[in-house]
Each structure stands twice: as structure tokens, then as C-alpha cells.
């Protein structure tokens, strides 16, 4: 499966990821956590073979990702960038059909089997009713489901997502995470994503990897990793952590400067 060994990454002269060794469990949901600039997105890009390592390696099936043929890699691994570009005027079904590209020779059009996969991907993500609509006209949450459908149409066993919830309101964030969780449980999809919300990571991930300043701080199950001392160390935030559903940790945080704030505030716990 996917793993890194002593991986260091850099943009030009600027080192971003330093000596990270980790393994992504097959069929699980792995969340990358860490402050802004800690190297989450960069690490995801290197998983997808988009950034050649400065030193160390990323391995997929024990073979360096850099040695994979791009098209073969695209059959194993799909990635959803943070801010994907919507081609002007494209309809939902045509965008999702682009996910079939690696399954055909580059000059070939889609076949009936490809259309069926596209239709299935729309059904799985609940966008079938939007098939003929232009993507630009959809809401943020709907668009994100369309992008996930496109990645599903690619029929890979690994899906990488760079902050898939960032531009969505809270309801859509949970909707997207639940969709990914369902796809993981029902289809065995291996999901690797970067997230900013510790509680969402705690709620949906099987495994969290915490990055700080480009180095791997901790990796493990949410209950073991997300602790008051880690959150204080990595995010500079004081927290009180309680046990939430299924024994998963739940943090309430206070930025260092805001410690003295009153604690009588409304409190929501998400259910799914």
C-alpha cells in the first residue's frame, strides 16, 4: 500500500516536509492534521506523485511512486485538489465522465461501460438529479459531491483529498465526511485527507497523522493521538478533551490569548 520512508520535500530551496516515515493503512480513513504550513498538502501531493522527493521515497505497492507510469498511477490513486477548477459551462455528467480518462487511450472517447461507471458514481454521491446541470450553478456542497463523484468514476482504490471541507458550511462539511465514510465502509475505499477540524478528524478517521513544522509529530488512532498535551504543543491551544461518541475524543479549545473567556457558551455535538 502507500507508505513513505524518510521522505523530505521542498519547493525550490524551501524545505517543507522533513524526514517523514509513515504507512497508510489499506481500507482505512487517514487524516493528516497540523497547523497551516505544516506540510499536509505537500505530503498529499507527494503521495500522488506530483512532487518529486528531495530525499527518501513514497512507495505504492513497494514501488517508488516516481517510477510509476502516470496513467497506471491514475488507475490506483485519485486526488481532489483543494480548489479544483470548474471548466466553463461543463455539465455535471460530462465533468464526472472526465474521471474515466485514464481508463481509455488518450484519443478514445468514452464507451458505454464508462457511461455506466459515471452513472453509478453519480448515484453513489447523490448527484444523479443534477446530471444535466452546469457545475458552476451548483452550491458548494453539491460541487464537492460532484468532484468526489469524478474521483469515484476514476475507479481507484485510494482517494486523496486536500482539505475537502474547507470552503463548505458546517452542514455540507459533515455531509461530505459522511459520504467519504460511507464509501470507505461500503466499497473499501482507502481515504487520505487533510483536515483542519480536530473533532471531525476524531469522529471520522481510523488513524490520524499529526504534522508540525514538516515533521511527523504523532501517528495513531484518534483516541491515542488527540490529547490535551499534543494540541497544546502543536496547535498552541488549551483544550479540555472529553470522551465523545464511541469513545472518540472531543476537544473544546481556547487560544492561548483567550484563556480568560467565560465558559458559558452553547455547545453542539454532531450526530451522524
Amino acid at each position: 500500500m502507500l507508505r513513505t520512508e524518510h521522505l523530505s520535500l521542498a519547493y525550490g530551496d524551501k524545505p517543507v516536509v522533513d524526514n517523514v516515515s509513515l504507512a497508510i493503512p489499506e481500507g482505512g480513513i487517514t487524516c493528516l492534521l497540523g497547523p497551516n504550513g505544516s506540510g499536509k498538502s505537500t505530503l498529499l501531493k507527494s503521495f500522488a506523485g506530483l512532487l518529486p522527493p528531495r530525499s527518501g521515497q513514497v512507495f505504492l505497492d513497494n514501488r517508488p511512486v516516481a517510477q510509476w507510469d502516470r496513467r497506471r498511477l491514475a488507475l490506483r490513486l485519485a486526488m481532489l485538489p483543494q480548489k479544483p477548477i470548474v471548466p466553463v459551462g461543463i455539465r455535471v455528467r460530462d465533468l464526472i465522465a472526465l474521471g474515466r480518462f485514464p481508463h481509455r487511450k488518450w484519443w478514445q472517447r468514452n464507451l458505454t461501460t464508462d457511461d455506466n461507471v459515471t452513472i453509478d458514481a453519480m448515484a453513489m454521491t447523490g448527484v444523479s438529479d443534477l446530471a444535466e446541470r452546469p457545475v458552476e450553478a451548483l452550491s458548494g456542497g453539491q460541487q464537492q459531491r460532484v468532484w468526489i463523484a469524478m474521483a469515484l468514476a476514476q475507479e481507484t482504490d485510494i482517494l486523496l483529498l486536500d482539505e475537502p471541507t474547507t470552503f463548505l458550511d458546517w452542514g455540507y462539511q459533515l455531509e461530505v465526511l459522511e459520504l467519504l465514510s460511507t464509501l470507505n465502509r461500503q466499497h473499501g475505499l482507502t481515504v487520505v485527507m487533510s483536515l483542519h477540524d480536530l473533532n471531525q478528524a476524531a469522529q471520522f478517521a481510523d488513524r490520524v497523522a499529526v504534522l508540525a513544522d514538516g515533521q511527523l509529530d504523532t501517528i495513531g488512532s484518534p483516541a491515542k493521538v488527540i490529547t490535551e498535551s499534543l494540541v497544546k504543543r502543536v496547535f498552541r491551544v488549551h483544550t479540555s478533551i472529553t470522551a465523545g461518541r464511541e469513545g472518540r475524543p472531543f476537544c473544546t479549545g481556547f487560544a492561548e490569548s483567550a484563556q480568560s473567556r467565560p465558559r458559558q457558551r452553547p455547545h453542539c455535538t454532531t450526530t451522524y
Partner: protein
Amino acid sequence: MTHPATTPNRASSPGSRPSGASPVARLFLAGGLGLAIVLVAGVQLGAINLSWAQVWAGLTGDGSEHVQRVIFELRLPRTLTGVLIGIHFALSGWLLQLLSRNPLAEAGILGISAGASLVAVVAFIIGDWLVSSTNPYDNTSFALQYLPLFAMAGGLVTALAVYFLGMRHGHLSPVKMTLTGAVIAGMLHALTTGALAFWGHAHTELVAQWLAGSLYGAEWQHLHTLLPWTLIGLASIALLVRPLEVMQLDDEHVCTLGLGLNRWRAFALLIATLLAASAVGVVGPVGFIGLLIPHISRRLAGANLPVQLVLCVLLGAVLAVLADLLGRTMFSPYEVPVGVVSAVLGVPFFLYLLSRQP
């Protein structure tokens, strides 16, 4: 010759959209009809207007010698050359806009036409000097068939420069590429004017007319020079359609779909440059067709690239022939070059598009 207009998944969608295929057919029909009309008008109208009977007789070979000459030596080659340069500039603009994801990209704006013009003008001046210094009586139209090659060389060098200078952190930055292109285009224009002022005295008029983009005096020779490049361009684009669809996405997204972006982008840039520069080499830089036609095609066709492609071919030909026709009939016996007419038609539309940019 062109790519099939409908794709399996689009063709199989009439269930959800009852009139799925027919609007496309109607667009093609309208475009084809428009082209037929301007073609006939291009042969019929001019310094002397021919009657229908004369055109028919001329085309079937029964006309008077005079009519035969007007049709076959003047108007038909000129009109057909117009068709080809319309296709060249429209497709070039379409490719450039797609590959840079920039709706304002075009051979003129990116400096490709200017680079092609500069090298062609210099080649013309040097060639003319060489020929006239060896044989002063044989300086008629210095090797027309070579000019497109020089123009293509100039266009390619410019395109490469703009492409690489337009990169940021190993990715093409559309804004940077457009700005670089505009600046380089300005510089090359200045150099062309300078070259003309210094060495071009003997031919200033001829070269100035060519620089305005003119179909004046287009002969079969022009057509023969262009046609191979038209065919190469069309065949390559037909193969490029699918990668081009994917290339509309974010760079990283494209790579994770298994497309080697740099290679395909370079190939598309090469085809776009060959199309524009070969046309520049024959008729001079004709602006705005490459900007206007892809925009109109996108409006009409939506995101369906094969349909956009066919519309670019049809409408590009229509605009070029129409602009030339207006240019040579409006102020007859004086001629306004096709580049001037297409710009006059194009500028208001361009400003309108700019005002609608988000």
C-alpha cells in the same frame, strides 16, 4: 477531417434532454449555410458584380474568357484562401485559450503573430536584396512558399519564450503568460517597424499592406502553401480533443488523471503556433478572428469541445471571407485589408466581452 461532433455519452443523453442532438445539428447547419452564402458572395461580388448566370456559367466552364479569369484567377483563390486563414486563426486562438485557460489568449495578443511577422519581414527584405542584387529583373514576390516557414520559425521562438517566461514555480501562470506576451508583442512590433524603416524603403508599401493582414492578390499559390498546414492542424486537433477536455482542469488534477501535462500543453502550443504563423506568413497578421470566433463558439456550444471545434472552423471561415468581402466592396475601388475590417468588427465585441469578465 474533423472530429465527430457528438460523443457516445452525449449522444445517449436524449432521454434526459429531449432535443439533445438537434440544436447542435441546427448550429452546424446555420454555420454551413453562412459559409455557403459568403462563398457565393465572395465569387459574385467585387469591382464588377457578376450575375448569377455569369457565376454559374463561369463555374461550369461556359463563361466568357473575362468571367473565367475573374472567377478562377482572382475571386475563387482569394475567397478560398480567406476560408483557410479564417480556420487557421480561429483554431489557433481556440487552442491557445484552452491550453492557457485564459479567455483572452490569442496569437496576436501573445506575440506569436508579431514574432512571425518580424522574421517574415526580415526574411522578405534580405531575400529581396539577395535576389535583386543577383538578378535585378527577377524580384517578383520573393519565394512565397518560404515565407510561411520563416514566419513559423519566428512564431515558434516567440511562443516558446512566452511559454517559459509565463511559468511560475514550474506551472504555467495564465496571467503572467498573457502579460509577457503583450510586452513581447509590443517589442516585436517596434522591431518590425524599425526593420522596415531602415531597410524596407523599396517595399514599404507592399510590406505595410501585408502587415495590415491582406488577402489582396491571393492566388492559388497561397492556397497551396497553406492547405497542408490546415490539414495537419485539423488532424492533430482531432486527436487532441480528449486531452484538451481534461486540460481544462487544475494542473495537478490533470496530472492525477494520468495526463502528462507539459508534453500535451507543448504539443497544443506547437499546433496553435503553426496554424497562426503559417497564416501570418501568407496574408500577414490578421487579429481578432482568433479572439472572437472561439468566444462565439463557446457561447453557442457550451462546454462541448468537439462542437466548439466544428463551429470554430465554420465561423472562422465565415468571418474571414465576410471581412475581406466588406473590405474590398465597401469603398471600391479602394480596398480595406481584411485585418483592418476584422479588427473594426472585433474591437467592439472584445470590449463587450471585457466588460463582462467577472
